[in-house]
């Protein structure tokens, strides 16, 4: 499926002070991008850049102030109970950073996966247990783990379970918010390979949100760099990371340590970075 985001903006109203004087925080400002059919796009940026808010709007966890999110040319305006909205609830699935927090600690993972299969009416209740085993196998988990609760699994196994749960909806786009940053280094590679395999086998489109440029280099074809709610640079991942044009992108690339001298950052202050409102 092809995702097209056009002119997306999100403002949050802030209330502060004695007289509840309200002001606006512009979290996302006029962001446009495309995730092609079976393509892989990433958004990089630091805290407060608006990258996670953008992802949450795409999957429908937030509503946009302005702009449109279209799937295969159809605008997914948030109309409750509409067919488009139900479609979005199924075809786009999100995988969060910390699976220990995104999975219900009391629910066995098999049951958490089955719930999604049944909710979307993708299998009859007699067929759904077999489907759960298929999904566990697809993410490289032993079927005996179906009865385990999240705390009984390692971080990597837990993230696999969260991916299996997302796949249970038979999505066409996976939105991955920092998919490996809570995992041990030696298990990160396993998850990155798994995501690449799933993309190839199922023709999935990927939208990855991360601060980790090496991960983006590994997983994405196209990248957007966000700073203070705006896209400051975008293009094919090779171009942007090898020959960054915007000063902010250069700083991000330079901050990936290759040597101490490369850390070309002033030690004095936090510099020009920050959320849109701390001016």
């Amino acid at each position, binding site marked *: 499926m092809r995702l097209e985001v056009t002119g997306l903006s999100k403002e949050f109203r802030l209330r502060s002070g004695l007289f509840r004087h309200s002001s606006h925080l512009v979290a996302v400002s006029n962001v446009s991008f495309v995730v092609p059919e079976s393509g892989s796009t990433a958004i990089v940026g630091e805290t407060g850049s608006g990258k996670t808010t953008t992802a949450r709007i795409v999957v429908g966890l937030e509503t946009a102030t302005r702009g449109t999110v279209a799937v295969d040319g159809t605008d997914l305006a948030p109309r409750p109970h509409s067919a488009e909205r139900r479609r979005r609830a199924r075809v786009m699935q999100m995988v969060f950073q910390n699976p220990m927090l995104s999975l219900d600690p009391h629910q066995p993972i098999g049951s958490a996966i089955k719930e999604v299969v049944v909710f979307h009416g993708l299998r009859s209740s007699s067929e759904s247990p077999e489907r759960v085993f298929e999904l566990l196998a697809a993410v490289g988990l032993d079927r005996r783990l179906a009865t385990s609760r999240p705390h009984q699994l390692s971080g990597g196994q837990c993230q696999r379970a969260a991916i299996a749960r997302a796949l249970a909806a038979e999505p066409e786009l996976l939105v991955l918010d920092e998919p490996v940053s809570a995992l041990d280094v*030696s298990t*990160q590679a396993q998850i990155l*390979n798994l995501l690449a395999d799933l993309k190839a086998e199922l023709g999935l489109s990927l939208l990855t949100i991360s601060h980790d440029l090496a991960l983006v280099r590994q997983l994405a074809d196209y990248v957007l760099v966000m700073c203070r709610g705006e896209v400051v640079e975008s293009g094919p991942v090779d171009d942007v990371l090898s020959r960054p044009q915007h000063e902010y992108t250069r700083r991000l690339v*330079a901050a990936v*340590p290759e040597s101490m001298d490369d850390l070309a950052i002033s030690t004095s202050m*936090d510099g020009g970075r920050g959320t849109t409102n701390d001016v």
Partner: protein
Amino acid sequence: MTDVQADSPQTVARTGRTLTLDEVTTYLRVGRQLKPVILRVDLELRPGEILGLVGESGSGKSMTARTIAGVLPDGATTDGAIRLDDLDLLRMSRKERRAVQAKEIGVVFQDPRAFVDPLWRVEVHMTEAMRVHLGTSKSEATSRAVELLAAVGIDQPERRMHQFPDELSGGMLQRVMIAGALTMDPSVLLADEATTALDVTTQAEIVKLLARLSAERGLSVLFITHDLALADIVCDRVCVMYAGRIVEVREGRQIFDDPIHPYTIDLLAARPTIKRRIDRLPVIRGVPTSAMNAPSGCPFHPRCQFALEACTTGVPALVPVRGGFARCIRAHENLTGTPTPADAPLEGG
């Protein structure tokens, strides 16, 4: 709280002390049993040195720091010797030990927001230790705090003293944590994943700050991280831990280009790089283990691509190799190569 012979907090430059760990083993109480979390750890942290301690979850890197700082869970016991110059911490009374640890060992943790009291102004956080442990007067403690905030690169330190933690950015709050850890003028700073929760540009700034403090003040820094490449750059020496043991010790800038232990070799190979897409990332099979769940023999052998029959019995000694040390019976063989992703089974089971 009364007269204290310790250096006056105004002293800035000072000669550091050497922290030595000699075969330190720490056990935690799990149910009715004692289970090891670090095993016979030997370390020497010299004055002004930045020593890296690198490992994954369960490696024991944080437990090593907590053992040194004396902040272990209830029921934990420690064997071996922890010395600060010639002071043997484990042979002192609890009260004496606490006094030395409070004075000489500063600690900075990963997530400053989880560590500070959100209802405390920066001022309280910065002056409390001095007021309680040194009996410093309020005005003296305040001026010392302002001086330290300036030293860690915080502008308008007087104004910051009156702010609450939620008014500061993550990077600035971590600077406050570092300044707070320096108020007692410690000789050792334990930085436990102190840059992990920060944005990359902020991480670079904090790393540079630690390097500067170490150089200017003779502060010894134990830099604990999961990021081997970062440690390699930042540290004078790097110790890699696995399952509660040190498995490799190297001078800085060596480990990245010339890893010796199979764990280090595989860990570096498994990292994606910003330079290019790797067709298929080499993976280390299985999951990291902790000392309490470690298999017999070399604790890494079930995951090791170079493992031999002999690796299943007996823990290898830490032997000198190529200017460093490694705990592997094949350490002298110049092992290279990356694990084959095709036949590496997935974690699980």
